[in-house]
């Protein structure tokens, strides 16, 4: 069963071409999906961090496998006979996913930091502050500007505190820079759909020795509700 699921054993015995192309595609897709977990989790699991470079090759492998499988539908007479339009449509959609994904990496680069901030906020239906923008990866250059401003431990601890517990009302935010002070890359991360700039953005002072507060329901006065992030952050 394991061999069948992971290595497609009976397909290997049946037809080497289909096996090679199909396995290339499926393994590529699995790696690519795992690689994308880094945009939705914080902290990033070390396994996910480890497979990042392999995920890039997997993207090409996936596209190559799909292209080969699609070519079979045109070139092999038997396969051409049994193909329905929906089979072509499936391959076209999957190939579209692969190609657009690779294009976002190599042709029109996407601001993955903003993407991650957005999705982490979307998961708890709350905005993320720019200062707490999580770094996409350890030793990744994308979040460097955020690192300069926020100490390392704080950046790591920040999302959880922001997501789970609000600061006490009335407490002065310690490290919240005034609006407009953020420059460079962070001005893009800085959301314009915050309710207003006076809303305290939760950045707790660094307390690495102290565990984060328990995830209790926030007792926030409902006077100034923040809008829920439901769209992509607008970019200049």
């Amino acid at each position: 069963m394991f061999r069948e699921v992971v290595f497609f054993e009976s397909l290997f015995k049946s037809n080497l071409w289909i096996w090679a192309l199909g396995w290339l595609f499926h393994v590529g897709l699995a790696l690519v999906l795992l690689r994308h977990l880094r945009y939705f989790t914080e902290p990033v699991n070390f396994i996910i961090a480890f497979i990042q470079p392999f995920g890039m090759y997997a993207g090409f492998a996936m596209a190559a496998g799909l292209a080969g499988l699609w070519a079979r539908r045109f070139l092999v007479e038997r396969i051409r006979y049994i193909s329905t339009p929906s089979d072509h449509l499936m391959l076209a959609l999957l190939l579209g996913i692969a190609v657009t994904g690779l294009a976002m990496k190599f042709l029109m680069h996407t601001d993955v930091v903003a993407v991650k901030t957005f999705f982490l906020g979307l998961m708890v239906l709350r905005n993320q502050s720019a200062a707490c923008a999580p770094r996409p990866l350890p030793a990744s250059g994308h979040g460097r500007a955020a690192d300069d401003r926020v100490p390392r431990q704080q950046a790591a601890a920040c999302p959880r505190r922001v997501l789970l517990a609000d600061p006490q009302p009335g407490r002065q935010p310690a490290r919240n820079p005034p609006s407009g002070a953020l420059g460079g890359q962070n001005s893009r991360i800085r959301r314009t759909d915050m309710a207003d700039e006076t809303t305290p953005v939760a950045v707790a002072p660094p307390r690495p020795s102290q565990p984060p507060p328990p995830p209790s329901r926030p007792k926030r006065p409902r006077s100034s509700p923040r809008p829920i992030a439901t769209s992509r952050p607008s970019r200049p």
Partner: protein
Amino acid sequence: LKFDAMVESNPYVAAAAHNESVGFPGTLVDGWEQKAVAKMGELLGKYRSLRVYMDACVHCGACTDKCHYFIGTGDPKNMPVARQDLMRSVYRRYYTLPGKLFPKLVGARDMTKDVLDDWFRYYNQCSECRRCSVFCPYGIDTAEVTMAAKEIMDSVGHGHKYVNEIIGKVHKIGNNLGLPGPALENTLEGLEEDVWKTPAPRSSIRSTCRAPKYCWSRLRPTSSPSRTSTA
């Protein structure tokens, strides 16, 4: 591929008497299209595997060159996946949303006489050997699809002669060849005579028996009335 290579070789449809003798309608019933589709729904509800087989296939083509009936005839509809698709196209038309909305897109077909003729022709060319399911990455069992199709055809009165007639004979006469009692008796008597009269070749007895003398004596009815052989 030799398209429609087997179109001319239609199997015989069972006579009404034979169909009725095994509890099926004698001839193709009125409104058989709806009844066939309803029967398919009944089988789909009864056998979860059939529904999975109908849904799971992605037309990868691994089975296409594995069927000896396809290799022998070259008729593309004898490829296991194409054979299943004869039924899958009808399944998609009546039991899936895409097939109801976009029949052309997913290759769905209405239940028509042409489709039934194709079923009768090609499902009866499948001997349910299950060679294709060994090679299918999903483990789809064409034999089960074939069984379901044959059951549907039987239920609307379109059975195969050499299936229903033979089963009818088993029920009516008692054996699949339809030999009447006296004829069978006579045949067995003749066989018995041959067995006792014909001397068995010595070499074969020796090679298969540990104690040739003993075995040989056991085989003679005169010397040993108990007819148990040790060989």
